[in-house]
């Protein structure tokens, strides 16, 4: 009976210490060369450093691969460096945006912000005066009214595409896709033309909501369609096989089964339009005072509030604009996380 020793599992293709040494040395060398170039040539400054680093890294890795192996490997190294750079680059803007929003906006945040409006505040009044309650209320109104309009239409559209599957389904899908590309300002112009020019109404939160609804419908419709398509046709067949009418099968079986997905579709739509500015500029009037009537009279919303303060240009106005942006981002990120959370859950089953 011979004893067999079982070899230890190993990964011969993996990177071990010995093989990695040349690469580590090369990386250090790249940094050193870059420092040298920046120190001893006219190229100076952060930008120069970054660009030189990039170029040296590309050339160095190409050279090393080219010498060690061949031209193909050199090309591979160049592209690898560039692709890594592209990947890293994508992260920076977001980092900068979030950082700046918090840095510049947090100063203006206060609880008092949510209890006053800008009706009697001068454009250069200190941050302790004035607030954005009128904008918050306005955003609240337009989101609710826009949802009331777009959710039924969006879900009905999705139901048409998945339950009725009529002959026009392809056309409708095409038009929904087309609708999702409408520039937001065109939606605002349209509502202005219809609601205010043709029908003679004034600026109002409801008008803004109608413009937003146009932008929200495609999102709700498309996401709802995806969600409804996931419901296995078994369930529908079982309902129909028992003698249920189509509407009862849909209402009592399909929609409850899809309910968390449909809620996600709605919240996605809300997240999409909560921060829109351009259509509001044409339909809401931009009030400074709190207006509790969503159907008549100038109103404001958080993006509009930011916009107005930006245009005012004074230092405190700019601070207010940043605070408004911070509030807006908190709201948008809240909805965003909500959709992630809801679509991550499996629902009741």
């Amino acid at each position, binding site marked *: 009976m011979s004893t067999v020793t079982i070899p230890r599992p190993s990964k011969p293709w993996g990177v071990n210490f010995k093989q990695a040494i040349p690469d580590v040395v090369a990386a250090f060398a790249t940094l050193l060369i870059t420092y040298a170039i920046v120190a001893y040539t006219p190229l100076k400054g952060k*930008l120069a450093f970054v660009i030189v680093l990039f170029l040296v890294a590309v050339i160095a890795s190409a050279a090393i691969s080219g010498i060690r192996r061949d031209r193909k490997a050199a090309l591979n190294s160049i592209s690898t460096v560039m692709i*890594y750079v592209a990947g890293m680059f994508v992260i920076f803007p977001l980092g900068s945006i979030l950082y700046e929003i918090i840095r510049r906006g947090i100063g203006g945040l206060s609880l008092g912000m949510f209890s006053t409006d800008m009706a009697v505040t001068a454009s250069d009044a200190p941050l302790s005066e004035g607030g954005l309650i009128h904008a918050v209320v306005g955003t609240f109104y337009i989101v609710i009214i826009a949802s009331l309009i777009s959710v039924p239409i969006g879900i009905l559209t999705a139901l048409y595409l998945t*339950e009725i599957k009529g002959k026009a389904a392809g056309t409708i899908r095409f038009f929904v896709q087309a609708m999702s590309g409408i*520039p937001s300002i065109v939606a605002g112009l*349209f509502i202005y*033309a219809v609601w205010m020019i043709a029908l003679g109404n004034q600026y109002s939160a409801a008008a803004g909501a109608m413009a937003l609804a146009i932008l929200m419908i495609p999102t709700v419709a498309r996401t709802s369609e995806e969600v409804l398509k996931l419901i296995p046709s078994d369930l529908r067949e079982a309902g129909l096989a028992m003698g249920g*009418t189509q509407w009862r099968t849909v209402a009592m079986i399909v929609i409850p089964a899809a309910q968390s997905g449909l809620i996600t579709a709605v919240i996605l739509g809300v997240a999409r339009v909560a921060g829109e500015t351009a259509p509001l500029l044409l339909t809401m009037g931009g009030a400074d005072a709190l207006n509790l009537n969503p159907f008549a009279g100038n109103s404001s919303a958080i993006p509009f509030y930011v916009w107005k303060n930006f245009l005012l240009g004074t230092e405190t106005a700019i601070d207010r604009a940043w605070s408004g942006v911070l509030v807006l*981002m908190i709201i948008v990120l809240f909805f965003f996380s909500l959709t992630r959370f809801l679509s991550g859950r499996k629902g009741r089953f």
Partner: protein
Amino acid sequence: MGGFGINFTTRSPSRNHPSAHFLRGDSSICPVSTATSTLPPKREITTKPRFSDKVFRAVVTTGGFSSLVILGLISLFLLYNGLNVFRTEGLGFITGFDWIVPLPEEGLPAQYGIGAMLYGTVVIGLIALFFAFPISVGAALFLSYYAPDWLKKPMVLVIDVMAAIPSIVFGLWGFFVLMPHAEYWAKLIHKYLGFIPIFDMPANAFTRSPFIAGLVLAIMIIPIITSISREIFAQTPLDRIQAAYALGATKWSMIKSVVFPYGRGGVVGGAMLGLGRAIGETVAVYTVLNIVFDIRIEVLLSAGGSVASMIVNKFGEANPDELKALMASGFVLFLVTLLINFLANFIINRTARE
């Protein structure tokens, strides 16, 4: 057939059982299929749906057609309102670059031409694509083929959050944070590459230029193009990829020979969708672009415009006549965006089907 050689006795079922006759071997009740030479005609299957179902179908169909209706109404109203302007200006509306709104007492005719704005829109769109496309495709390749697993999920999250950021945030950030840096970069570009006409500077005005607007738009459209490219790359057939590796390809040659040919159409479509989004952007462009009704090729100069930002610019003080011109401009923008999106989706769908 008989006889497997089994002999078994059956307890016969009760003779009174009404169905007893077929519990015995009476197969004549069940005629077997004979190959039919002439097939009977297909029946028309009709149902008489319940009233509630008819209502259901009507309601759902109405809701479903609403998107058609809305799109149609938008075209109708914008066109109707802008009709006079189109008629008076003719093709000059699109090509002319004078936007003159005379004071009423002057008694001069107004002139509306969005040519400069259309040009400006195209310019900033192209600049945005110029920066966004390589970065997006690179990032998509990074996520698909290079990134370690622990990095993928956070990066995808970052991209999705970026897609959710409202445009006014980009407007503010672009103006206050990016522009100072971009101004510096523009100065550098002018210093070293100023011999190229587009980088020339007739005046020392580097802020709020098409270059900066293009940069802001680029950052805004990177998430879209990246996401679509990633989806396309994910659909590349795995066996082709492995065949390339088996032939000794490096990662880059695999990408060049398999991924790009396969995904070319989809990525182009994604880029066009990004372009469509950039063209329709309003507030993000408004803050970082100075509107001047003139066509200039110098992209670093503080003069440019886009149709969308022009509409917002002029809306506040427009008289009814000018408003109609703005409606006409909106209609043109609407058509252009629709066209680009339609083309983009067409290309993407065609690639996806392969």
